[in-house]
């Protein structure tokens, strides 16, 4: 699990992975809404110009074209920022992709507040609620660049629609190059018996750091990386609730419609335990991404605080 790789942005996985998959023979077509340099999709366009369809910033059109390509047998990849997809084209995703269950793959980069300086219009903290509301979609939030590459490969080789959320900044790499991600499966990163932190995306590393601090305070913390938001790995979540008796979720997304809400809903029906939630509750602002995580409480310290509260409620 440990790695010495330098920090990398999860979005950096897109271009190289699509090129690799196309070389393997997958019939990939990439549709671009004027952000291909940022999402790294343009790297694919350089290698396969005829399979790189430029549209300019016209996200609704992009989704419709992808649906048509998928209906004609192509593996259609759309990429832009989370605030524009699903933000700008939710209806098109719902009617043209989710309902007919077409093999359209959406790669939404620059998710969450770690977009940073661009400010709240660019900070997607609602996208996963929208995407998890759609049936047929598999919704993925990989924790680092290695897992993102693996998620892209899994999405490209699986039938049906996928949504992959990636981020802008270079974040620590937690997985070794041999990590293979399976959609629908969570990953147990640290064993523990007192409490479980269910984390996703950029919060996975924060959860691991929090677990170290908690260990020094005598709290044995289990850490699970839930990178598939839909379908949720309910088996692992229920097992964690039964075995550790308390859960804290950590996500770079609005709490009331996010991972915490989905985990709570599931546990309420099978095995309710004290729960705590780390995530967004308000719009943020411009600033450096790491300063924003600090100010808006998406930190190891916030996780430690929530864990101590739920552990106290157990007793």
């Amino acid at each position, binding site marked *: 699990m440990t790695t010495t790789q330098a920090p990398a942005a999860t979005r950096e996985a897109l271009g190289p992975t699509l090129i690799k998959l196309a070389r393997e023979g997958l019939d990939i077509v990439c549709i671009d809404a004027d952000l291909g340099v940022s999402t790294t999709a343009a790297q694919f366009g350089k290698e396969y110009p005829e399979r790189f369809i430029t549209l300019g910033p016209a996200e609704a059109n992009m*989704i419709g074209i992808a649906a*048509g390509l998928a209906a004609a047998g192509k593996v259609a990849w759309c990429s832009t920022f989370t605030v524009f997809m699903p933000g700008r084209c939710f209806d*098109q995703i719902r*009617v043209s992709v989710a309902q*007919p269950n077409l093999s359209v793959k959406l790669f939404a980069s620059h998710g969450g507040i770690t977009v940073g300086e661009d400010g709240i219009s660019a900070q997607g903290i609602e996208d996963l609620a929208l995407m998890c509301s759609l049936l047929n979609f598999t919704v993925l939030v990989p924790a680092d660049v290695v897992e993102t590459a693996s998620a892209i490969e899994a999405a490209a080789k699986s039938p049906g629609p996928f949504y992959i959320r990636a981020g802008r900044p270079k974040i620590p790499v937690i997985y070794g190059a041999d990590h293979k991600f399976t959609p629908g499966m969570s990953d147990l990163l640290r064993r523990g018996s007192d409490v479980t932190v269910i984390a996703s995306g950029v919060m996975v590393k924060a959860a691991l750091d929090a677990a170290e601090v908690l260990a020094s305070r005598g709290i044995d913390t289990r850490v699970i990386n839930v990178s598939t938001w839909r379908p949720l790995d309910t088996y692992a979540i229920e097992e964690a609730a039964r075995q550790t008796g308390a859960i804290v979720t950590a996500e770079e997304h609005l709490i009331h419609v996010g991972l915490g809400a989905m985990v709570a809903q599931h546990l309420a029906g099978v095995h309710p335990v004290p729960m705590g939630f780390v995530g967004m509750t308000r719009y943020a602002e411009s600033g450096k991404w790491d300063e924003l995580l600090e100010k808006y409480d998406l930190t190891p310290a916030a996780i430690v605080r929530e864990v101590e509260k739920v552990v106290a409620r157990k007793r």
Partner: protein
Amino acid sequence: LAYERPGTRAKVSQLSLFQPYSDEELIAATKRARRSIIEMVFAANSGHPGGSLSSVEILSALYLRIMRHDPENPSWPDRDRFILSKAHAVPVLYAALTECGYFPREEIYTFRKIDSRLQGHSKIGTVPGVEMSGGSLGQGLSYSIGQCIAARLDGRDYRVYCLLGDGELNEGQVWEAAMAASHHRLANLTAIVDRNHIQNDGFGDYERVPEEKRSPMPGGRVLESGYTANIMNLEPLADKWRAFGWHVLEVDGHDVFAVVDTIERAKGILERPTVVIAHTVKGKGVSYMENNPSFHGKAPTPEEKERAFEEIGA
């Protein structure tokens, strides 16, 4: 060929597995389609007869003369595609599909009913022959572009025909798609606009509104009937498409032979997509539905239904 009228440029692909209709058969088929539409909407006691009736000649021309398709093999990769972007007019699509033999005609009476394959708006994976799931306006032209690009990448020569409502042209996505289709030089794409001047809330412009009811005020105006006039003006429509890089043709949308000839002419246009603006009458063929906004989305009564059958003559 027997069905070709003198002087027409109509050609049917040698590869077509569907035997095109003769002139007489084509006319008879348009009447059957109109009757089927009324029967479907009456049986369901809901649905959209107006915009279905205005498109009858367009779909008859496509399915019975122009398109290369095979009802025995609906997923044939080389088939021409028909994309119903104005998916509320799905009765006219079901009428065309059952005419061709994609599904048994008796099934039209299940339209919009529970457990039916004939959904209220077109949906793929239900009845064979439906190419797109629709129901939210403005999405079909983009979807058609995807199919056209796939044809180009795969080296296939199929053509894609996309039917748009004129009210649907109020949707911005249509113009995103229009820009992209000419930019990517999709000569295998033909859009057809059902230009009937009426949409859900009333009249798109003042074209079909009596002079005395027109308002000097700019913008839309609610009439005494409760319907709105001048909702969103589209003119000059042909110039708009031209400005977006399209080849523009216009035709009387109720002269089925002229529709065949006009749509066929698009096959000779290279390097850019073609739009056929089909001038039509909403509710065409049923007098009390013609130019009547209330039959955009309403079923006829039993008496109205019988009168419709008499007028249609089928």
